[in-house]
């Protein structure tokens, strides 16, 4: 089975109903997406498929079709971080950090669809990624900062 992750095509020998997260972590050694719950309740495994956020634990690799996968490892440009990553650093969002790759991938996809979000919209989008450290106030501030940066172009 072939799949494209972060711009690189891979060949894997797996069953089509294997969750994408298992393929990424165990077959391709791409460990940025984290295993948290395995049932779409925590969001730590969030990646992009054709630019849209997807919980990698819920997507069977056989259902990818020709979808291009982007993980936290492939979000930045070679010479610069993605604006959401930079905002995360500027606002020192991460505490334990386990959920942060999911948080950042969710925030990046969210801002692509909703570039000028309100506090309420940010809360609705980001509370679907569980952060046991409770960094949500910093997450909200960082998303606002990233949105402003994206508006600047």
């Amino acid at each position, binding site marked *: 089975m072939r799949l494209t992750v972060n711009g690189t095509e891979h060949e894997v020998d797996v069953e*089509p*109903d294997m969750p994408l997260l298992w393929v990424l972590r165990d077959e391709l050694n791409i460990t940025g997406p984290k295993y948290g719950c*395995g*049932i*779409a*309740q925590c*969001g730590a495994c*969030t990646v992009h498929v054709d630019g*849209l*956020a*997807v*919980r990698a634990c*819920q*997507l*069977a690799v*056989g*259902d990818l*079709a020709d979808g291009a996968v982007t993980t936290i490892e492939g979000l930045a440009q070679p010479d610069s971080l993605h604006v959401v990553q930079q905002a995360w650093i500027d606002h020192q969002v991460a505490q334990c950090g386990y959920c942060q790759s999911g948080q950042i991938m*969710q925030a990046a996809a*969210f801002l*692509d*669809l*909703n570039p000028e979000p309100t506090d309420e*919209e940010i*809360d*609705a*989008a980001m*509370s*679907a990624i*569980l952060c046991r450290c409770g960094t949500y106030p910093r997450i909200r501030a960082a998303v606002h900062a990233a949105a402003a940066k994206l508006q600047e172009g």
Partner: protein
Amino acid sequence: MKLKVLAACLLAASSPVLAEVDITPPTSATPAEGLEAWSRIYEVASHPRCANCHTGASDRPMWSGPSYGKTRPHGMNIRAGESRIGAEHVLCSTCHTTKSDDWAKANTTSHAAPRVAMDWQLAPVEADWFGRTSVEICEQLRDPERNGDRDMLALAEHLDHDLILHWAWKPGGGREPAPYSLQAHVNDILIWGTAGFPCPEN
């Protein structure tokens, strides 16, 4: 604008045409038979597998029924937005991922997000009937203004084509399925429609 384009694309892509049921109306049906059919239709429509996603402008899917304990809004602060697919916040398809076909093991894991071979979405606002009475839902379902301008056959065909509705009878993951069967439900729609869409009195 981007949200509307995305919503249109997802909804357009989520209309597979698969004929699974026989849509043959009876030659006749009495009002009494129509009301009996309606009572069964109401059991289905008000069942958690159906009603949980028939919420209104609040845009909050519900978690209710024996699989969930107490009735409450969908966890994780999920809102479907005006798009009804979550495009303003978190796309429904982020967790309710879209299958390429109807493979058997898709929904075997308890508490995991159900998946079907179309993009997950909340029912339209005008189809809000969570917690409503039999009379209220009956009047809604026979009203073209609120049922998507569907007649009896169009209602039956909608049930045949919408794979999220099919999921209600095979939800997996320890969830209680909707009562009867998809074919029986379609048959009841056809009996009810042939009888003139009778509704119970208050």
